[in-house]
């Protein structure tokens, strides 16, 4: 058994788990954070994307034990004070989801794209960087629109925060 300690959405958590426990299993089954989804289970679909120490990773392809000592952010950690994160709001406004299964991973990937490329990220870059996230409903068009809009909003709120 492995003793794991990490910060999940700002809260320190500790548990003793089977060594082979995947991070996604730990989040869903130990922490009841079921917003992070398991789609393909073969490291391709991106429904399980979370941020570990600020970087997007596939939580189905990392052991909980490997994440011990890290800061983990899941989709549940984005909204604050009853308000959606700007990227979540952008997906709502721009109809960036249909069935919604891929959406948590899409939004975590989207925020990572903005973190890496900034608020003015162009459409080509967004499409390229969604390579690790699969959606079977939308045809991606509205997801790309949502991310571009969410990026601009994030840029605006970053500026506001700086002021």
């Amino acid at each position, binding site marked *: 058994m*492995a003793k794991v300690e990490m910060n999940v959405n700002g809260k320190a958590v500790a548990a003793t788990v*089977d*060594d*082979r426990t*995947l991070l996604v299993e730990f989040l869903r089954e130990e922490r009841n954070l079921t917003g992070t989804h398991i789609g393909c*289970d*073969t*490291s391709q679909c*991106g429904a399980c*994307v979370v941020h570990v120490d600020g*970087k*997007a*990773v*596939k939580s*189905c*392809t*990392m*052991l909980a*034990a*490997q994440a*011990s000592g890290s800061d983990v952010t899941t989709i549940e950690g984005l909204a604050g004070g009853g308000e959606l994160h700007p990227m979540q709001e952008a997906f709502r406004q721009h109809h960036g989801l249909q069935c919604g299964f891929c959406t948590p991973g899409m939004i975590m*990937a989207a925020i*990572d*794209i903005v973190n*890496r490329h900034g608020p003015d990220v162009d459409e080509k870059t967004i499409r390229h*960087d969604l*390579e*690790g*996230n699969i959606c079977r409903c939308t045809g991606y068009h509205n997801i790309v629109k949502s991310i571009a809009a969410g990026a601009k909003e994030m840029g605006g709120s970053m500026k506001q925060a700086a002021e």
Partner: protein
Amino acid sequence: MYETNYHRADSLADAASKIGEEGKYLSGGQTLLPTMKQRLAAPSDLIDLSKINGLSGIEVNGKSVKIGAMTTHAEVANHSGLRDACHAISEMGGWIGDPHVRHRGTIGGSIANNDPAADYPSAMLALNATIHTDQREIAADDFFTGMFDTALKEGEIVTAVSFTAPEKCGYEKFRNPASRYAMAGVFVAHHGDAVRVGVTGASSGGVYRPADMEEALSDNFSADALDGCSVDEGDMLSDIHGSAEYRAHLVKVMAKRAVAAAH
């Protein structure tokens, strides 16, 4: 995934002492963990190398380049000094997997696994790189010994790779449209006195150097110089993704594109 025992090593010696007979070193885990999840591998122990000091990072001193084994693909892709010294290896790092995989996967893991479709082995051959381990230094030419096979001894750990930046280099790959793995990837490096070429993804023997292409390019470093070269279909992989004949054709096309893109 079958049961396994996870250990986090705090030094190379600690890692080597824990590997045992049926253990596996764990780097980024982007190949090993999916393989274990499919029950295609069942190591008794996983020795996590990620917290060992000194195994990560990129040093560029003029033409001399050293990349720590635990350096991620994202770090290789985004290091400006490395891009200036050897742009093709940065581009290679940025074309592996997807952004999330690139945040975890490492150059050392890729090299130690020597998947026949992995990208880095072709760069190591073309760049005449040295593979550093916890025990010795191994020339890339001696390191890659066949599909999923390397010169690493039981328990030996890759710690870094180093090479001298070439005058010109280029990498092109034809990606499987579903998996994004290379169906043929060619790295060309012009070292001034000689040209070296590494081919991945295509051969049934794993990564290799095509002697006739190197000779032709050493005489005349241009895509046209490859017109007279031929790729033996008998050496190529053949599977549902592409026949040997198709892959042989791809190797030459990718080689020409890599030369055209080299600068």
